[in-house]
């Protein structure tokens, strides 16, 4: 890589961006889809493993979504299962912070959650698309109640610090105006026969009709202040009852202003496969799923177990672990097979006798940087003052998202919003701050969108995933190149060891990736165990 033209420096502009003067967040989703995130789930119903060979055992490392999925299915098939978990709780990144919870990040800073009862922050996953059938099937199986997660809220904001004087715009207005102007342009081209090659005379009229409907155009196919456009973007004077409420149409924003605002970049977020309605969240926080898994597995999970060594030979696999609370004294756990779900940055540091292909794959995947900040406010001003009920505001500020609670509407008490969901280099910078500084910056940035922030702010929690002692990062960051070179080697069995987790999936960062990779791994494990059992019986006979 000696080509200077292709490598850009941390320039002054970059530095300014780094320190939060400007930032870009909306390109994230485009980048994510190009990395293979926007994939459907291959889950096709519960798996049913035939009976395990007599006495066969499996050691599962990690009690996150992938590890607990593997443990549950293997236990049900009759394997003797033991799970080792570093944390004092199950769930891994499936995690909800609630009143009284304490969280100590790497570096030793401890936060105590001072949210009111029933309020929470999901530092990890917060939404489940309807087609993530695997994770949903476990929620159903455990009786975890779900409620709607609002992805698209037409009354939430799109915000760009460099557009409209920095004033946030309602999603409905930008979407209507963007769509309306584009429809008008297309209608013009159609009428002027500029699309003749693509559109037959027969289709022409139908296209015009559909453009009028799609873009809310008037009868002359213009996108202007009209009843039609106001029924999309809202009225200047709203409709009401009686003599005092005759509506007057609003005036659309000019096409050029919409284009230059860049806000169109976030309009289609809810059209992405993984963001399409319906989406769900467990009532009471995402952590309810992990908690239910843990109840189901009970004493099979050993907590506070820090794995320090993994050995395999022709007979089985042995993990050496120490008590995370009192290091030094080691114990071992052994089994015929091992499903290892330890996040790769940690696994890369644990001595383990696997072959070069898997070892290279484990070292090939750095983890994404991400930070989530939950802010508790004294009142639900976004509902009371701005009629925003759930959903997400998108901004080019480093906070990128403001996620309003999709539950407890009209509550008279306090409320918790996701004040920041920081990515990439901005997240690295937030990680380098103390939790208090992250919260303070989140309040400062958010004040540009909701001026009520300083007045109403109560307290906050900030989780920087690279400071998480149990993952050392947010999720596996594959590139096209690394996936082509290492992905199959990461997923393939190395003698008695198989890996699972979102990092071993094409659904990176999604719980569904953990579930489907675990089901894939245990299905292959079972086939091996059964085949070996048969060989053993054959040898005895």
């Amino acid at each position, binding site marked *: *890589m000696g080509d200077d033209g292709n490598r850009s420096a941390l320039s002054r502009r970059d530095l300014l961006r780094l*320190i939060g003067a400007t930032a870009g967040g909306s390109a994230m989703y485009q980048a994510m889809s190009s990395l293979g995130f926007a994939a459907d789930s291959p889950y096709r119903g519960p798996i049913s493993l035939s009976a395990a060979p007599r006495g066969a055992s499996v050691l599962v490392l990690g009690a996150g979504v992938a590890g607990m999925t593997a443990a549950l299915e293997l236990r049900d098939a009759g394997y003797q299962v033991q799970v080792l978990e570093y944390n004092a709780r199950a769930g891994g990144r499936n995690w909800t912070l609630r009143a009284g919870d304490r969280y100590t990040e*790497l*570096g030793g800073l401890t936060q105590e959650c001072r949210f009111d009862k029933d309020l929470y922050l999901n530092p990890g996953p917060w939404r489940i698309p309807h087609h993530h059938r695997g994770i949903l099937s476990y929620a159903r199986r455990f009786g975890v109640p779900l409620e709607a997660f609002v992805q698209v809220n037409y009354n939430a904001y799109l915000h760009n610090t460099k557009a409209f004087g920095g004033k946030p715009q309602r999603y409905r207005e930008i979407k209507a105006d963007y769509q309306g102007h584009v429809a008008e342009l297309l209608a013009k081209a159609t009428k002027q026969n500029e699309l003749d090659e693509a559109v037959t005379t027969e289709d022409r009229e139908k296209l015009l009709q559909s453009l009028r409907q799609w873009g809310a155009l008037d009868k002359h196919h213009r996108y202007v202040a009209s009843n039609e456009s106001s029924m999309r973007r809202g009225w200047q004077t709203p409709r009401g009852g009686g003599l005092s409420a005759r509506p007057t149409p609003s005036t659309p924003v000019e096409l050029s202003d919409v284009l230059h605002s860049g806000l169109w970049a976030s309009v289609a977020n809810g059209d992405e496969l993984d963001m399409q309605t319906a989406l769900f969240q467990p009532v009471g926080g995402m952590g309810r799923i992990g908690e239910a898994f843990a109840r189901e597995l009970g004493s099979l999970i050993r907590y506070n177990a820090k794995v320090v060594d993994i050995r395999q030979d022709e007979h089985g696999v042995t993990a050496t672990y120490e008590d995370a609370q009192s290091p030094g004294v080691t114990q071992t756990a052994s089994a015929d097979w091992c499903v290892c779900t330890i996040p*790769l940055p940690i696994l890369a540091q644990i001595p383990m006798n696997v072959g070069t292909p898997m070892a290279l794959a484990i070292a090939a995947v750095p983890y*994404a*940087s991400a930070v989530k900040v939950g802010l508790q406010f004294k009142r639900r001003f976004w509902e009371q003052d701005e009629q925003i009920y759930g959903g997400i505001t998108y901004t080019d500020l480093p906070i990128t998202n403001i996620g309003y609670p999709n539950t407890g509407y009209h509550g008279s008490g306090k409320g918790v919003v996701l004040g920041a969901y920081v990515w990439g280099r901005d997240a690295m910078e937030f990680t380098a701050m103390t939790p208090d500084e992250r919260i303070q910056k989140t309040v400062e940035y958010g004040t540009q969108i909701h001026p009520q922030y300083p007045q109403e702010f109560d307290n906050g929690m900030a989780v920087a995933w690279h400071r998480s002692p149990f*993952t050392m990062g947010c999720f596996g960051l594959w590139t096209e190149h690394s996936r082509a070179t290492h992905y199959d080697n990461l997923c393939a069995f190395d003698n008695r060891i198989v890996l699972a987790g979102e990092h071993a999936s094409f659904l990176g960062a999604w719980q569904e990736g953990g579930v489907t990779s675990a089901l894939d791994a245990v299905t292959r494990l079972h086939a091996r165990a059964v085949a070996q059992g048969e060989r053993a019986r054959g040898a005895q006979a």
Partner: protein
Amino acid sequence: MRIAARPLALLAPCLVVLACNWACADDRRASLQVAAGDEHAAEIYSHICQGCHMANGRGAVGAGHYPALAGDLTLVSWEYVGITILRGRKGMPAFGLSADEAKQTRSVHLDDAEVADLVNYLRRHFGNHYNSKVTARDIAGLPHPDADGEREL
């Protein structure tokens, strides 16, 4: 584009904003009477590196660990440090990626002059005393990330 020389005039406005935003970084800077390269490296360290290696360079231990830079014997080799920054190592991201790759992963990428500054900074702070200095030219001679994204083990 690579910044070969970094005039102080260019840097100064950044520092003003930095001082407003990051009190801790500012405090550290106030105590440093160092050359522009060190100053720039200190900024990069306090805004990026210390997220994992911590403000005091002592790293941290959880289920895994972030290596301490204070007293780290690998610092004896500037090549090792340079390659680690450029190409990443195990869970550590690469900071010398091509513009395309860095964009794809929304990561930070440093040019050779910045990597040189950082190498010099790490080897002469946190109680380390390796005083030989490297330049952008030295860093340019190290293996940068491959197109296939191979990393260091």
